[in-house]
């Protein structure tokens, strides 16, 4: 079935077309939500909210870009809005230094590397994780991230730098990344 026919059906609120669109993108979008959410259940709630927005706003999609990108944008914004409702997130995203974290073998399931990487990202403090997700994976600029999260652009940059360093260290410790460089200064804070 072509994307055009599916979109047309969704525009007519056709349940079959809506389900086809959902089936096509839900797994990818759930993994997006999962990177932001605290738990799988929270991720599914975000996904549900995101897709409801997708279907109710589908008339705004004007075929200018990829449908997946448009859906992803809505889902990411839904995730961010959900996170912003949480007070802890607001505090966390503004902190300069995250407290140290313990990385233990059992905290990272060794199923496949992609899953390991995602789980490693999820170990990061929520503020770090969000900025890292938005910048490194979703491709937003620091300016956009600052606007989305209501923080300074410089805060976004510093958060990202620290998040990246922390994640690299975790990935090295988990043997997902090769040991190519020495520990950075913040790694001293990371207790094995």
């Amino acid at each position, binding site marked *: 079935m072509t994307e055009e026919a599916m979109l047309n059906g969704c525009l007519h609120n056709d349940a*079959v077309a809506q*389900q086809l669109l959902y089936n096509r993108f*839900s797994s990818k979008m759930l*993994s997006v939500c999962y990177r932001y959410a605290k738990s799988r259940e929270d991720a599914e709630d975000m996904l549900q909210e995101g897709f409801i927005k997708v279907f109710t706003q589908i008339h705004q999609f004007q075929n200018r870009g990829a449908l997946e990108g448009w859906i992803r944008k809505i889902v990411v914004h839904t995730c961010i809005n959900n996170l912003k409702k949480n007070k802890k997130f607001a505090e966390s995203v503004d902190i300069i230094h995250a407290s140290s974290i313990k990385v233990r073998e059992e905290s990272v399931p060794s199923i496949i590397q992609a899953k390991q990487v995602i789980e490693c990202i999820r170990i990061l403090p929520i503020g770090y994780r969000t900025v890292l997700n938005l910048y490194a994976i979703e*491709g937003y600029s620091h300016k956009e991230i600052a606007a989305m999260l209501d923080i300074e652009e410089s805060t976004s940059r510093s958060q990202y730098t620290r998040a990246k360093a922390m994640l690299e260290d975790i990935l090295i410790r988990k043997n997902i990344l090769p040991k190519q460089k020495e520990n950075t200064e913040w790694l001293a804070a990371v207790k094995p």
Partner: protein
Amino acid sequence: MERKHYMDEFENFLSEKADQYKLYPSDKVWENIHKHLHPNRRWPYITAGLLLIGLTFVGERFISHSANTGVASAVNSPVSSETLGGGNSSLATESSSSVPKNIDQNRTPVSGKQGAKVISMQDYLAFRESSTAQKATNISPATGEAIADGNELVFVNNPVATVDKSSPRLNPETSRSFGTPAGGAVMLSVQREKHQGPMDATADAELARPWTDNVNIRFPHFKPNKWAWQFYVAPTVSYRNLSGSMETKNTPVQLSGIPYIANADYGKDVNAAVSQRPAMGLQVGTSWIYSVNKMLRLKIGLQLNYSRYMVNAYKAAPERAAYAPSDPNGFTGYNSDSIRLVSIYRNFNGYTSVDLTNEYFQLAAPMGAELKLLGDRKVEWVIAGTVQPTYNLNNQAYLISTNFKNYAEEPTLIRRWNLATSFETYVSISTGNYKWQIGPQFRYQLLSSYKDKYPIKEYLLDYGFKIGLSRTIR
């Protein structure tokens, strides 16, 4: 999303891994999304229907109660000279001048159930004649009993109470009272005390006077109960008539894109192209019935219809289906103005057979007449017909595509307002104020279920067996 910044190796690595990672949501997520996008409106309508029926029932009870209260208030209210017959010849007025204190002070309003004696008009007339002839002290045994026991005479349909016999000043044997409430009521009250005293002579004189001089008797007007309220249920078998074809005025439609339609007749008659079967439905309603005369009754009401039927189809890979082409030259489909839907059901040649249920929830306002053909007051044979403006509350209808190839839902093509008619015949049996009726009925939808731009016409049929209970509103 397009990258707006330079990505180093690490970021590329993260992005790649993130893209590789997939999680599959539970079925509940889609169910919730579907519920949100396509809310199930059945329950609100069913609830509204039940509420409507409940309100009707309460309303009927209220009307009935009000009618009774009207009588009761007439009974319980103090009786004025006007209510006692009106004019200047009221016996009550006369009585009040002769024995006013006893009557007024000792009259205690009681309801008809509180010991009132109910007699017929014939008894009353007999009593009146005998009383006139024999005077109060020599009344006939029958009427005498009525007076002595209850101190009151009450016409059928107009129960009233008058004198309280508990008063020590009254002798039940010699006190009489007739009364009806206002509006065609008759009430006269004569009382004589056996006690010695100055009143005796006056009272005897009053009783000796001809009654016709004293009482302006207006006989009660027996109004037939013209209104009745009815509740009914009718299990139905629903089906549909289809009409319309793929043919244009002159040119047959190109069927080259539909290789599996081998039968050329499919292009001529949609009935030949679809496979369907009836299913059970239900009608529930309430009516107010007005008796014009003994033979003819008019009725108006509200009715909830649930009609459905089954369509045999096949599941297939999703494909595009055209509906309601605006091209006047025919059903060539896929023109810019036609409605195109995604369909996963085929009329033929799918990978698995499936039964699609088309169902309609409608609210109708039947208005019509009933004609009694045979019968007496107990048992009747009646024929009836109604016209029913109908509003489509909700529906699930799979429409066949204009090339007869697919089925899909398209709510925008369903007509909201419609018109139906029904015919029925029934036998009714009366039990007191209630009347049971049973009999077959047939309901036919006069306008197509679909809007005019959809070339196929559908007319719903309901064959039902109606069971009704009606109650006379008094």
